[in-house]
């Protein structure tokens, strides 16, 4: 079966982002960019499915600026077969991304799309569920285990209280949680090989998708800052302070 893996270009998880002085957003100029960590997990899962002989072809897709090619290359170096860049400068909300992905799914006909559960920039946790809705497919979100089970997919999900297992009819959508796998590092030979793998570039308009945002950002502010407090010298002093000063116990 063919597997699609959407990968988002985001500010690297190690960067401490700064709010722009004019309150229009966060500073992204000259900041390290990477593949969204949950998407690395998604690519890894697809590659493992291919290694097991379950997946036949893996297509990595990124919607964003032309520089998002870098994240597609990373996916190709990890083992994806080809890439599609949906080039667009400016905001893409999950609904717009889901519509873009639906248009690509309609063309490519995959049996499975594996997305990250959440992009660590917008923290929306929405695109996979939205794509499942638009396609009328079943969804296995926050997956910590994925197994092919005949014509179905068995997905173990991280839920409040523990784990739950569902069976999805294929084609289906999966979104990855942190415990699904540990993504591999691409080896140098694979990075070299990835340079030769094809990346097709399209525009949202070519796919017939209107990506006009539905949300207007009125302002972006820094959250209330916490002050570092004091060090206490002993457990006795800590308990004393919690009882008489903070009065929380």
């Amino acid at each position, binding site marked *: 079966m063919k597997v699609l893996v959407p990968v988002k270009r985001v500010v690297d998880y190690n960067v401490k982002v700064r709010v722009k002085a004019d309150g229009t957003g966060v500073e992204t100029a000259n900041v390290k960019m990477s593949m969204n960590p949950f998407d690395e997990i998604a690519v890894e899962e697809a590659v493992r499915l291919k290694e097991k002989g379950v997946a036949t072809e893996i297509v990595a897709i990124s919607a964003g600026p032309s520089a998002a090619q870098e994240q597609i290359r990373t996916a190709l170096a990890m083992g994806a077969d080809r890439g599609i860049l949906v080039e667009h400068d400016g905001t893409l909300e999950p609904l717009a991304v889901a519509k873009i992905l639906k248009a690509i799914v309609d063309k490519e006909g995959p049996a499975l799309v594996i997305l990250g559960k959440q992009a660590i920039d917008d923290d929306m*946790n*929405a695109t996979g569920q939205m794509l*499942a809705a638009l396609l009328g497919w079943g*969804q296995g979100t926050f997956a910590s285990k994925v197994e092919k089970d005949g014509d179905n997919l068995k997905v173990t999900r991280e839920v409040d209280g523990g784990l739950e297992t569902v069976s999805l009819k294929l084609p289906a959508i999966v979104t990855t*949680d942190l415990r699904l796998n540990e993504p591999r590092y691409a080896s140098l030979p694979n990075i070299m090989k990835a340079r030769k793998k094809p990346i097709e570039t399209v525009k949202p308009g070519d796919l017939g998708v209107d990506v006009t945002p539905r949300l207007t950002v009125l*302002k972006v502010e820094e959250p209330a800052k*916490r002050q570092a407090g004091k060090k206490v010298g002993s457990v006795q002093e800590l308990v004393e302070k*919690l009882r008489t000063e903070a009065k929380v*116990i």
Partner: protein
Amino acid sequence: MAVLVLADHKDGAVTQPTRSTVAAASKLGEVHVLVAGPGAAAGAAAAAKLPGVTKVLTGGDGPVLAEPLAALLVALAPGYSHLLAPASAAGKNVMPRVAALLDVQILSDIAGVVDADTFVRPIYAGNAMATVKSSDAKKVITVRAASFDPVPAEGGSATVEAAPAAADPGLSSFLGAEIVKSERPELTAARIVISGGRAMANSENFKILEAVADKLGAAVGASRAAVDAGYAPNDMQVGQTGKIVAPELYIAVGISGAIQHLAGMKDSKVIVAINKDEEAPIFQVADYGLVADLFKAVPELEAELSK
């Protein structure tokens, strides 16, 4: 137009995050609540007592699956201006699906209501707060419970009726669940939380945190590193991509204080950090910091609390 809240419920009670969601919803209009899944009737009876709720609808009491639940919410949507759910695993699973079916951009994890169209939500692990205005006719929202004081559990008397049945699209089926049983309070509802990190070194050692938790009536949490290593169940992860908590007291034990962890606990009223590295970033947000070996300090803490 009224607003609809999808409730999380358990053992005949609605969860505290659901009561926080009702508080957020009350700022937007008259509140109706939908209760579905195992134990729906008892959950509905509890929801009917929430102040501000005027009507409770019961869905089926079979296992909750995203696809039929979304279909039900979409069927109910014409009667409501806003559809809300707590930003719990259940809410985050179903609400974006509902939003897409309604051709609406979801407002995830809101931390503030400015007006009927305008909301505040954290981005970049809570390192920035965005105020966004939605141009969609209907709003689909998940609510960050820690940002809204919950309504009391009692005081209202809503009517309860069955929701009209919606067709199950039959896309998935429920195979089973492994739910961790605990006598301790829920992480997202506890007044006190004590969390352990990678330094706990194994799951057995979490017992010393549990002993303190039992003295304080606290919930036990964990960092991602502790969960990944298998020292604690996934359900206990606090952080950007785990649970968001804001208790009166948060005690971080052997946790370095990565941005992703801070994202889940930095709105706590009082933060205590116990770490043997005095340079650990967690101390920058802690009201009280104790530089110590946890294996010495935590048992001492338990003993001191017994006094």
